[in-house]
């Protein structure tokens, strides 16, 4: 068998930001994978962002620091980047490009797959209909995560969204069916990454999880690749090996910043806040890789985690994410206890399909609606109490305030290592609504009330 040596190009015409412009190339296709070899023998990797006659614009994942126009050799792979896929990823800790960090051998796969994937035919999608139980009461009870859903966690700097994401990754399960977690850490600090790794330790050891770590001081452009790698691995686990896979992408704000950096280096016309105009399409190409397929047992559920700069939900990153994801879990400083989930601003659009009779508990949707309605009323009452004093409130309004307090202390508050069973979450939820007089609970059926409501003694 003859192996043709790939053509090496040395005509580096320009180095700019994360980009290398190579002249004199022939037949190099768009989005092709490239290897850049430095004089020192060091190898870096990249993707073709544009090809113009004999010019190729390559973005270098590891950055261009130390690259010189002379002595740099670039080769092209002849096609888009493919990565090995298979069960070999489970139990492994790798960097943002998939190289082992755990001292093990390189990850090999039964097959390989294009890292960009292909769009899933919408007619082959099965509407999501079963829950992923996270063991977090606030999520399981009020914003149920559903298999095949994409549900974002919106947070602000200083809040424990990473702890929550890691806790969900460590605890989540699908009730006995084959389950796996792919955790893509994007631009995390060493301390955060270490804590995620600790939390996932058991799951990694059990071969139920893969961890990809792109750290805050790792090459910025590598972040463009990390979530794609995670999703490519997850798609194979889900649709070839038929597992239910949860993909956690944290922090997507760092990903978007990397994208902005590339866009700026290319001199593209910026859209809002200098993010590229294609940010929506780009984010969609990641988040939309979740789903279920008719006739296959597996699913990909995506949990993107992002920090809203200055807590601004209209910032392009949370805004565009919110337009793509099927709901959001909003963490707020105004909620005093871990996990800081603001129930009234959080929503799981798939919950109607994934919770209720035969899936979680028969009264689940009514109970969740009742709790949210009561919390909304309690918030109004609290605002009024600020103006006129709590003593001026009616007796019913005061019961609503008591209910909101019980909600925070009994249902919402949870330890960072505490996995709550669905039974326990529902037991607590009923305790919370039972603070209200029974006649206030108009959204629950009499039968559900007979079974769950506790008269105050």
């Amino acid at each position, binding site marked *: 068998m003859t192996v043709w040596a790939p053509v090496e190009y040395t005509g580096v015409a320009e180095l700019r930001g994360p980009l290398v412009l190579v002249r004199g190339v022939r037949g190099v296709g768009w989005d092709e994978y490239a290897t850049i070899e430095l004089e020192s023998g060091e190898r870096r990797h990249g993707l073709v962002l544009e090809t113009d006659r004999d010019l190729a614009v390559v973005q270098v994942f590891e950055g261009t620091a130390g690259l010189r126009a002379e002595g740099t050799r670039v080769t092209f792979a002849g096609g888009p980047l493919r990565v090995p896929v298979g069960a070999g990823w489970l139990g492994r800790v790798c960097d943002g490009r998939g190289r082992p960090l755990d001292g093990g051998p390189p990850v090999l796969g039964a097959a390989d797959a294009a890292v960009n994937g292909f769009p*899933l035919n919408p007619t082959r999608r099965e509407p999501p209909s079963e829950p992923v139980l996270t063991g977090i009461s606030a999520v399981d009870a009020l914003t149920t995560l559903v298999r095949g859903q994409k549900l974002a966690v919106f947070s602000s700097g200083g809040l424990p969204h990473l702890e929550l994401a890691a806790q969900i990754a460590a605890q989540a399960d699908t009730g006995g069916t084959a389950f796996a977690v792919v955790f893509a850490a994007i631009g995390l600090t060493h301390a955060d990454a270490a804590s995620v790794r600790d939390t996932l330790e058991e799951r990694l050891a059990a071969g139920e999880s893969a961890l990809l770590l792109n750290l805050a001081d790792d090459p910025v452009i590598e972040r463009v690749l990390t979530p794609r790698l995670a999703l490519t691995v997850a798609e194979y686990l889900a649709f070839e090996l038929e597992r239910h896979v949860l993909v956690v992408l944290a922090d997507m704000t760092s990903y978007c910043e990397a994208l902005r950096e590339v866009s700026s280096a290319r001199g593209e016309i910026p859209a809002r806040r200098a993010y590229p105009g294609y940010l929506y399409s780009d984010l969609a190409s990641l988040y939309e890789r979740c789903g279920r397929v008719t006739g296959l047992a597996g699913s990909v559920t995506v949990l993107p985690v992002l920090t809203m700069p200055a807590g601004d939900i209209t910032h392009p990153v949370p805004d565009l994410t919110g337009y793509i994801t099927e709901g959001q879990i909003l963490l707020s400083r105004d909620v005093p206890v871990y996990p800081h989930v603001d129930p009234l601003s959080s929503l799981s659009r798939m919950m109607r399909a994934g919770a209720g009779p035969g899936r979680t508990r028969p009264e689940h949707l009514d109970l969740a609606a009742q709790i949210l309605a009561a919390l909304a009323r309690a918030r109004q009452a609290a605002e009024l109490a600020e103006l006129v004093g709590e003593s001026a409130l009616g007796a019913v309004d005061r019961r609503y305030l008591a209910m909101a307090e019980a909600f925070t202390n009994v249902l919402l508050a949870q330890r960072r290592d505490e996995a709550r069973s669905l039974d326990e979450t529902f037991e607590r939820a009923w305790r919370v609504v039972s603070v209200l007089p029974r006649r206030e609970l108009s959204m629950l059926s009499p039968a559900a009330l007979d079974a769950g409501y506790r008269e105050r003694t």
Partner: protein
Amino acid sequence: MGAVNTSGAPGAPDTVSASGAAGTVSRVNGPLVEVDGLAGAAMFELVELGPHRLSGEVVSLRGAHATVQAYEYTGGLAPGHRAERRGAPLSALLGPHLLGGVFDGLLRPLDGAGLWLDPAAPRPSPTDRAWEFAPLAEQGAVIGRGTALGAVRSGASPPYLVLSPGGEVSAIRRAGPCRAADPVAVVGGAEVTVERRRPVRRPLPYAARLDEMTPLTTGQRVIDLLLPVSLGGTVAVPGGFGTGKTVLLQQIAKWCDADVVVYVGCGERGNEMADVVAELAGMPDPRTGGRLADRTVVIANTSNMPMMARESSVYTGVTVAEHFRDMGYDAVVIADSTSRWAEARRELGSRSGALPAEEGYPADLASALAAFYERAGRVTTLGGRTGSVTIVGAVSPPGGDLTEPVTTLTQRFVRSQWTLDRDLAYARHYPAVSWSGSFARDADALAGVTPEGAARRARVTALLAEADRLTALAELVGAGTLPPHERVALLGGRLVREGLLQQSALSPTDAHCGPARTAALADALLAVVERAQALARQGVPVASIEDRDFSPLLRAKDAPEEEIPARRDAVLRELEAAR
């Protein structure tokens, strides 16, 4: 009556000539591809790119140098690859297979395509199926353009009419099975097939626009009562994420009384498209007895499918609607979301180096939006029938900011706007259509159809406006300090919001509400509010009025229509007890 000669190619309209001429790809930047050596190409002509023959469309020409927008992922496409002219503009294959089908932005069937949409993989052809043809014209007759030559039926779908290009019918096929690509007649010397290709960026012709107004009933009370839309009208539905835009549009797709619904998922979620398709397939059409899917054409271009096909999908959708309009049907196009379409145009403009206008959008955004919405209308077709295209376009304003370009430009060109309000959605008031922030320019003309309808709408609108004003006041000074009649107005506002405007998409009885039922509910609520006002004027303590049990009326929307008067009377009796 002779059988049709089957030789010869069907007449291809809008041929630009010189099909097959080829140039060379010189630059690839995502979906933007530049090609050298395309002398003689026309603007918007289709080009096939590279070894996988990815389709693209010429968007600018400078000498023999063409800029092409590709409709597929261009990974691997390289300078030096061949680019072949197709000699025709982007066109869609229109035929009876459309009803009940799911298609991509170029109207290629997705049913039966692979699990993963690999651009290099072959796509199934829609033309193999056999249809039952019935002739409607006689051999030898001279018939005008747009007149029906025959009909094909499938299931409970509305009959699909094969329209004449005009001229003498020299041959026509007998009744019986035929395939969509088979000629069924020769008219004016040209063969006519059941299916045909039509360019999508140009409106299909009609004889005249009609002025008189007929309402499109959507089954959603807040719309039919307060913000009605006419057949042939245009509606923008702006709403930030989480305001229930997609649910509202799906409700309209399911329940509006159109003959054909074209649902264009333009850059939206895959799971939602799966949900729409599954729900329509499982739901009976109350008017025909068939499935709702049989009157629906779904164009699914989800956000992860190629961006430029998203750009074309709104045109494809409206072309399909015009095609059914020409058969004399009332068609509704639901485009979710036009913002994604505008963003696709922005992305291409940015890649091709066009100078940006507002927020980076290309300067032709306003004219492109205007031209798109102008394709709506109720018309006399070339064949003399009456048909309509109604366009409902969702707008997804970034950050919920209603001053952004797509929202403000769209507002200028539409007849109605249903603004979805974040505060209403936050309070779980669905559909979260704001009654104060929306408009319906045809409301007066439509209400004029029934005088009592105009009066009802005026009373509900006035009641809501008064309640809104007082709510703002009560937040400052406390409701307790307001005079009795104003407290009753606040109560009235609450009753109308909860008992009339809120409508559950999940409730089997409430998801759809016919005009008579909407009117009965509104009248019952207005009667109760009026009685409450009368009692307050007579000096009955307002707290005791507020404490009455209004729940029979608030829950009347879940009850059978005939029960509504009894529930109204029960609440009126309950009010009397406040004395």
